[in-house]
Each structure stands twice: as C-alpha cells, then as structure tokens.
C-alpha cells in the first residue's frame, strides 16, 4: 500500500514539477529514563575466589543468587553507583551452598545474595544497605 502512495506522490512530483523544500519538524527526544527507584536488598555478597588444587582456582557465588531465564543463567550485580544490573554467567558445579562461576564475574564484585524477581535492572541500592556479608558465602 505504501508503495502505491509513494508512486502517487512521485507522479504528482513529476507532473507538477514542483516540490517544496519542507523543513522537518523535529519532536524533542523523549526523556531518557524514568527515575531509578531505590530498593532495599537483603544483602550484597562479594564474589569469592576459591583456591583449587592443580590448575588455578575458581569463583563462587551463593546458589541463592543465581537465577535461570530459559537456557541462560544470571545473577544481579550491584555496580559502583549501586545500580543493579543483570549479568549473564556460565555456571559450573554446586559447591556446598555456593555455585562455581566459570565466566562472567570477577572477584570482589557485589552480587545480590538472594535473587529477587522484583528487583530489576536500573534499580539502585543505597550504600547503607550495601552490607557486604562475607560470612554468607561460606
């Protein structure tokens, strides 16, 4: 349909042989993002490196931090400014209450200790709530 329309426009152009040089109205770009809401989080846990025998160590996060979306595995990470981001990881075996992370996280990063579907990307956690509970990762 749109082609026919353009054809008519085109025919009009050729027969009338005139076209105005119409300026384009430019709507103001939409405001970037809605204000991030602040959510309280049970606790943020740091990614730990565990010394393994033989060839190097591995990273672990609490099993409760890991969630599945289809075939993908993810955790929620809190960035420097407290912003929550989804991070896709490659998970290995469970070690006690922890899960080995093969790729996607580095040591010391803060992950949300227990995954909460209500938390979404862009939320922020305030510093006071960002308590690093080293003990939880045992």
């Amino acid at each position, binding site marked *: 349909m749109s082609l026919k329309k353009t054809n008519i426009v085109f025919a009009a*152009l050729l027969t009338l042989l005139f076209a105005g040089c119409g300026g384009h109205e430019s709507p103001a770009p939409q405001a970037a993002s809605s204000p991030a809401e602040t959510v309280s989080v049970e606790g943020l846990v740091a990614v730990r490196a565990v010394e393994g025998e033989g060839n190097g160590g591995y990273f672990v996060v609490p099993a409760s931090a890991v969630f599945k979306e289809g075939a*993908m595995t993810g955790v929620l990470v809190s960035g420097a400014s407290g912003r929550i981001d989804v991070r896709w990881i490659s998970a290995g075996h469970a070690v006690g209450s922890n899960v080995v992370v093969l790729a996607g996280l580095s040591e010391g990063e803060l992950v949300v200790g227990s995954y909460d579907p209500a938390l979404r990307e862009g939320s922020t956690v305030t510093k006071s709530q960002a308590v690093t509970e080293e003990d939880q990762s045992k």
Partner: protein
Amino acid sequence: MNEGIAGKIAKQFINSKITPLLMVASLLVGIIATFMTPREEEPQIVVPMVDIFIPYPGAAPSEIEERVAKPFERTLTEIQGVDYVYSTSLPDFALVTVRYDVGANTEESMVKLWATLMKNMDKMPAGVQMPLMKKVSIDDVPVLNLTFWGKDTDPYQLRKAALDVADELKKIPDIGDVEIKGGLKRQVRVLLDKEKLLRYNVSAPQIMRQIQSANSQITSGDFTSMNREVIVRTGKFLESAGEVGSVVVGVYGGSPVYVRDVATVVDGAEEVDNYNFLTWGAAAPEGMPEGEYPAVTLTVAKRQGTDASVLAGKVVAKVDQLEGSVIPENITVTQTRNYGETATEKVFTLLEHLSIAVVAVTIVVGFFLGWRGALVNFMSVPITFALTLLVYFLFDYSLNRVTLFALIFVTGIVVDDSIIIAENIHRHFAMKRQPKLQAAITAVSEVGNPTILATFTVIAAVLPMIFVSGLMGPYMSPMPIGASLAMIFSLLVALIATPWLSYRLLKVEDGGHEEYDITKTSYYRVFNSILSPLIDSGLKRWMAFGVVGLMLVGAIALVPLKAVQMKMLPFDNKNEFQVIIDMPEGTALEETGRVAKEISAYLRTVPEVESCQYYVGTNAPINFNGLVRHYYLRRGDNMADVQVNLIEKGHRSLQSHDIAKKVRAGVQEVGGKYGANAKIVEIPPGPPVLSTLVAEIYGPTEKDRIEVARQVKKIFTETPGVVDVDWLVEDDQEVYELLVDQVKAASRGVSVEQIAQTLRMSVAGMDVGVLHGQPDREQVAIHLRLPKADRTSLKDLSNIFVQSQGMGSMTTRLRAGEMIPLSELVTIEKTIQDKSIYRKDLHDVVYVTADVAGITESPVYAMLEMDKKIAQLKLPGGLSISPLYTSLPDTESKPAMKWDGEWQITFEVFRDLGTAFAVVLVIIYLLIVGWFQSFKTPLIMMIAIPLSLVGIIPGHWIHGAFFTATSMIGMIALAGIMVRNSVLLIDFIQIRRNEGEGLKQAIIESAAVRTRPIILTSGAVVIGSVVMLFDPIFQGLAISMIWGGVLSTALTLVVVPLVYYMAEKKSN
C-alpha cells in the same frame, strides 16, 4: 545565412504537428520508466569475490600455509581476470579469498575457479577435505532486519517464532536469503555422566554408535501375494527425547544399559553459545520499555535486480498479518533496518533536490528572459530527464543514490542548450529585423552549431570518467553515462522542442520601432568601459594578467598549506553505525557479553541513539562494509558486535559521523577496562576497504614481520588523529596439548584416534543424529556432550575414561571393554596456540589497521606524518623501511611496508580521474580545432580551464570542506562548461569580423551580446548546484561548480577576449 544542421532541424520541427506529440510521449515514457526502475540504496556493484574454505583437520597454520594455501594461491593467479588473492591459514583450515576485476561476470569466474581448484586437488596432501566455495555478492546484504524481542521470553522461544515467520516470508516472491541471527536451537542433549559411564562400562563412542544405528529406518522391499503388494519397512527413527533415552547402549551384569542410565537426556534449548539483546536508547519512540530484552534478528535479503522498497513493504505487511497468530503475544517485532525505506527516502530527497534545482534555475532564467522564456526552459528540462530515466531503465540501472546524483549534477547543464537557443530567439524577436518565423530560424541557425559543439565538449569532459577502474568504477560510471545521455537529449530538445515552444510562447513586443543598436545596451557599456582600456593599453593588460596569475598561484598554494585537504569521500549521514568488539583470544563468552552489555549501556544514554542491539558470539547482520571486511565470519566467544541505530536524520542536528566521533572515547574507555579492542565502524560512503588506514608489513620471517608491525602499531597509537588501532595478530591463547603415550596406549589396547574421538565428544560435543518427525522448521540434532560443569579444568579431563579394545593389545591378559582413565595414557603440555598466517598476492603479510578521526580526517595526511617516524625506525640488522605507496616490495628478504586501505582506492581514483582529465583536454582541443580550423584558437579557449581553480580551491577553504573525488568530478565537468563559454564568445567575434567589423569592436560587441547567455547558463549551473551543498558527499562537487563557475565565468569574460585580441593583433 547558412542554416547548418541546427537550423534545418529547427525548420523541420518549428511548425510540425509531431513536435508536441513527441514532447508528451517522452514525458509519458519517462514517468513509466521511473515507476518500473527498481529503487535501492547502494548501486549494484558486482564485486566478484569468492571465499574458499579448505579444511585440513588437525594441521597447524604453518603446515596449512605451506601445503595448502601456497599451492592453491599459485594456481589461482594463473586464472585470467583475478585481481587479488588473499589467504589466511588458521589451525585446521585455510581461507582463500579471490577477488576478480570489478565488473567481471560472476558465474564465469566461479566456473573458472572451480575448474582450477579441481585440477589441483590431486596435488593436495592426504587429509585435505573438499573445499567449500562461497560467492559473496552485494545482494547478500540484508535489506530488512526484524528484531524479535519481548519481556517474558527467552532466546529459545524467540528463535522458534522467528523461524516460523521466516518460513512464511519465504513465500513472498523476489525475496532472497532469510537468516536468523542469535537465539538458541532446539536440541536433544545427551549429557554424559562420567561416573555412571565408568560404572556401567560404557564409553562415549559406544553411545554414539548405538544411537546412530538405532536411529535408522529403511524400506526393505515388498511382498507380492494374492495380486497385492505389501511394502516392508524395517526400523524406526527416533522421534522423541524419551526414545533417545531408551536406546540400549550396552549390557552390564546381564541387564541392558539404556542411554538414560548413563546420561541425562534433555529436550530443549541448546547450550548457550550466543547472547543477543536489544535495548532502547535515549531517543526511543514513545512507550518503549527501558532495560534489555533477549532478542533474535531475522534478516531478509533481496534477489538481484528487485526493488528493495517494494520487497520491504511486502515483508512488513506480511509480518503485521502474522502478529497474534504465528508470533505470540509476548513477542514484539521491531524493524531495526529497512534499506527499502532509506532507499525510497534517499531517492525522494534527491528528486526533491532535483525539482528545487529546476525551479531555481527557471526563476533565474525568468529574471533575464521574462516568465515566457522561463516557461520554455521549464518545460524542456522534464523531457530531458524523462528520456534519461528511460535509458536508465533500458540499461538495467536501478534508481539509487549514484544514478540520481548524476541527474542532479547535470540539472544546471542540461538547461543550457535550451537557454542559449531561447535567449537568442528572444534577442532576435527583440531586434525585429525579420518576420517572427524567419527570426526564430535565423536565431537557431546562428547559435545552433556552436551549441552542438559546446554540448559535445561537455560530453567529452564527463565521458572519460567511465574509465575509472577498481571498486570505485561502479560508483562513478552512472555519472558519465547519465550525464552524457542527458546532454544529448537536452541538445535534441533544444533543437526540436525549444524553437517550437519559443515560437509560440515568446512575444514580439510592440512598441518601440527604433532600430536595434548594440552600443546602447547596458552590457555593451559595461564591457566597453572594462575592455577598452585593457585593449588599448598593453601595460594595463599585462597588469590584469598579472593579477589573475597571482590569484591562481595563491589559490593553488592553499593545497600545500593544508588549508584545503584532500580526501577521497567524506562520510555520509547514515542512521546507523556498529561497534566491533574484539576481546583478547581466550576470553569466555560471558565475559565478552559483559563488555558488550556495558558498552551498549553507555551508548543508550547518547541522546541520538534510538536503539542498540548487541550480538555476542555471533555477528550482527552485515552491511556492504561488513561484506568486504568479512565480518560475516566473526563468530567466537571473544567477539561481539553492537548495532547502533540512530534516530532518523531529520530529527537530529548532528551527523552520524560526528556522533561516532563523540561516542568513541566513551566506548573505548569501557573497552579499555577489560582489555577489549572496541572499534566504531561507520558505513563508508564509497567502496569499503579493510580499514581506512592499513599498513601491510612484509618481511622474511614471521618474527620479523610481527616485530616491525609492533613498532608500526606503536607509531599509529602515538599519532594524534589516528584511532581504533588494531592488528591482525591474535593474542596468545593457552593450549593444553594432550600427548598420548604410544607405548602405554598400545599396551592397554587403546588407539590414539579413540582418545581423540572420546575427548572431542566429551568437550566440544558431537551431533550423533537428528530427531525425526518433528514439526520444527529447523532440524533437531541429538547432541552428545559432557555437561558444562564437568568440563572446566584439566582435572575434569583426566577423569574421562576410554574403553580398551582388548584384542589388538599386546598384552593378552587385558580384557576388552575395560575402562582406562585418560590420565594414565596422556601427558599434558601447555603451549600457545599457533597464530593465523595472512598472505596477500603470494606474499606473507601482517596487517596493522586504524581509522582516522578528530584532528586528521584524511588518511593521506596521517600517512605522511607517520611516514617520517616509520622511516626513522631502527630495525635489527641496521635496516630501515621506507613505506611504499603503490606497489608491493620487490623482495621479501628484508622488512618492507606498504600503505593500503582507503589510500589504495584514493590513489586509483585520482590517478584515473587525472588521466581522464588529460584525455578530456586532448579531446576538447581536437573538437575545437576541427570546428575553428585553427591550432591557436582552441588554446585561447582552454585558458578558461585553469581559471576555474581560482574559484574551486578557495571555495573549499571558505566552506571548510575536503577536496574530494566529487570535487574533482566537478572540476572536470566545469572544464567542459568553461570551454563552451569561450566557444560561444569567440564564435560570435568571428561572425562579426566576417561581417566586416573591426577586431576591437567585434570583441567588445561579442562580450556584450554573449554575456547574457553565458551568465544565464553559468548561473543555471551555480543555482542548480546549490541544493547539493547540504549533502555531505556531493558538497565537494557543489563547491567546485559554484565557486569555480562564478569566478571562472567572470574571468573568462575578460581574460579570453584579451588573449584573443593579443593573438589576433599580431596576425593582423
């Protein structure tokens, strides 16, 4: 007066009834042709490029290079028409890319290539498998990308929906390749359990064999009895995961062992091997949600010679129809690329410009000749264009930015013939020396023949551009062809239609009956006051020449002073760009994904960005650039592409190139944190190259080459304005080599092949068959592998067991079928993965690539700057290198470097255009010598050509623009126009002198009489070019035409008569 050809034609048609019919008919066929010519964005460029993959499993790059790549290359160069041969030797296979001469017949080239390959297959080492040949063509570039995304969905569902849609779309006629990027396939995964395998005494190869043999069905024949035939079929295909699980793989302790006993069988998504996410940016349309969503992209290519916009329209309509039925409610389909739309938009913008140019020119003509004169011209232009468009259609050209640009380019020129004729008729009507009809014919006869000559000089100027070779050729060729055709048609229109129209439209004003006197016109007074003193006084004349000469020298001096910089083509204002992310080799998929995610999170905050889509582990849908750069081969855990779509260009003030420059720092800051090399890749306006700046390093050994490359790369990084520096040398990737202890293996009844197979199945996995009778659009593979968690370290590897063959072993005590741990049979050695070896035209090469942005926008200047530093490099052995520009080094025995990339094309284009210009000058000279029968007069006329530089170069300086290939085209075309002005001028001087006028009087009169048509025609060129000033690519041409046109016209009117006076004075 002699009527000449022009007069005769005019006489025939001026009162003929056929003339108006011809005019209407031309208009009609033109309109029809415009509808029928396919529209697309890029011109149809035939780049016969063929990729040949030659697998040689297990071989190292050095061996592949020596045994496979080199012999192949040598034979390929024997083929006639082969331009370049590139090869890359990677572990396990070689990739040879053959590029034919641009414009060569693709099918013919493929056949020749195939014949040569087959001829040499017998010389290949054992183990080399059948080569795979893939033709790469412009029609492989998708014209439409549809991104499937949604909140509550995952890559598996998305891919399924996309597949269903793809199946429906394929039914649309004219559709080309439909591909799906990203998502996860359905797969029956047989996840082996190491412990259970050991317990039940079953090995991975055994499972593979059992599943393969169980998954078979065959028609066994038929029975005949009682006059009936009954078909007998044996076996049954596996049709579900349950059936796969029930396959018996062995017997243990008297009871059967099923697949499900030793492995977990899962029917569902395959293991994650890519991440593909869509995120809306700051400039997203109203109502688009924030955040990232899993996405899958469906790409649609078109068939050759079809209209991109029509196809895109049909596909979009079909998808709308499928929404709600085939496409589930929770999946949204968004267009992330529509070249049909952009092509239509481009075509209409150009048509709009064309119309504006025509109207503007008409108004200018109106000022001089009144509205009736303007109307005559206004009606002749569409006829010219209609006929040209018809020829485009007949020649199988498509309407694209290049063909249409050719039309805009000639707008100012095609009205000229009509203007000259109409103006002269107008003048003769005003003189009232003859009856109206007679006056019109006389007027046509008077200027007709010089007009014919002038038209051919302009054609002579543009036509040699057809000989531009290389990739730029197809971009250029529609221009000389289109412009020449338009010129010829405009001449015919001027001789046939214009007199007819003028005779009817132009009025002979009643009123003053006094005799027409040239000396009373204002033009005469002006020229008398300017030219008389200069003609009379030799000193003043020389002073005038001196001033003009100084202006010329000053103008040219702007180029070495870098006030005006040369560049091949400036960037176009597009609606997209890409970020290409390369992580160090050996980076895991999720880590690469994290970088891509962070970069896209940054990009979406950029106010002009509408959406970002990142592809990790797979490539983004390619564009023409990616086609030449082989981006479609970008597949790997350490690679990611981000496709950035900008808001429609009408709604933003920044050009895409400026946005790309702006975000580069931010993107690279994120990339730098993770050691990633993130490059901003824009769509080049002209032919794509490997990279804007490419340094090819040659040398005797790989170590030498890499060492030189490292130093050159360092110079690249240190040079301001040079960005996105990279090289085609992989980082060190760790490799564990498992060396099989032959003695141990033999004594335990295990073969090396068996170990290799077991390991491959366990780690990389293996498709052991397909699930039959499934409704899916894609085949469902049965995939055997260890779960990811069980293959993370060397410790895991050593837990794998292989089964002893027993029989073949040297120790007979050993019983067959015993499970032997791999760790007993192998020793592990850590090494570094061999690096790929690149070759170009039979030379080993290392590439260092970069782009230019910021303070240097033109690669040539960056190259010149780096040249000095490179020449100072101290190489081992006291050698030094001086970069080469045009040819490969003579010897490989010492290190050498050659510049390539955009430079190579720039060099070819300017070389060819320069040659074309030289040819133009000779042809013009010949034409005028033939006409005026003098060797000297043509030289006088051609003085006008260098004078155009006085305008062109300062014009670029004033606009702060680059002197580009289009500027050069403008300069060449202008040469034709300026010579035509001189022709008209001198032709009239000679007519007046033949009528018995004195030399000085004839010159001044001629200047006075011909000023009006000259200013009118030059004015038309200038006004017609103004619309192009706002187009980033054609700006250079517009500047050349406008500034060159104005200044050279003004100077021509003074300088040419004066030189002519001096030349003729002596001969008198």
